């Protein structure tokens, strides 16, 4: 996604993983559109407490995606704590073993 300009030097990177090409692009392109629309609306109304949201790299607030990103070396933020990720990971390994 294209990054917007920053506000006062402070910004929050917001990312989503979507299919921009291929068979599922009809979903992924719409998802990216929604993310840009909401982020623009947030910033137009003043941002989140003086922070500006910016479309950025890859992240998704979902434990499974976070695990995959983490295993791939991703060090960004996720709306899951380390303990939640560990718990989910343990459950998954129990179910699949």
């Amino acid at each position, binding site marked *: 996604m294209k990054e917007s300009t920053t506000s006062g030097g402070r910004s929050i990177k917001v990312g989503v993983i979507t299919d921009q090409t291929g068979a599922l692009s009809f*979903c992924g392109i*719409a998802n990216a*559109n929604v993310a840009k*629309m909401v982020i623009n609306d947030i910033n137009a109304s003043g941002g*989140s407490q003086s*922070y500006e949201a910016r479309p950025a790299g890859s992240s998704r*607030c979902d434990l499974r995606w976070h695990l995959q990103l983490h295993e791939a070396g991703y060090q960004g933020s996720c*709306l899951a704590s380390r303990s939640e990720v560990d718990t989910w990971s343990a459950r998954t390994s129990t179910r699949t073993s």
Partner: protein
Amino acid sequence: MVQAAHVEGLYSCLDYYQGISDPFSKELINQYNKLYPGSAKFTAGSACSGLYRGLRLWEGAVKEAGSPRQEDVIKALDHAKIAEGPGGPAEMVPGQHHVRMNMYIAQAKNGNFKIVESLGVIDPKECMQGIK
């Protein structure tokens, strides 16, 4: 994509359909269609309604936390709510990571889903069977 004729008459149950008539949902679909005309439509089946809701809930959590700090946002997100969204308001159910929101039953008619029943607010009733 499945052709319309192949799903004619089938029922579906989701959190949002383009035919929902509350003012905010109508305004939202009009805004999206104006910004992004084309084949990538705003639908629940493509996760657009969930993504919209998720970003707005996150926005509320960041505002309550007063910071983008991960642990603070997680705590605020646990009880975040939005007064308006696709299909109506929504709120996180504390401790569950799930959302309490409106659900609808619709039937495919000539390439569009026609709402046949508004189920109202539905609790997530998280099912832990098979996980513990």
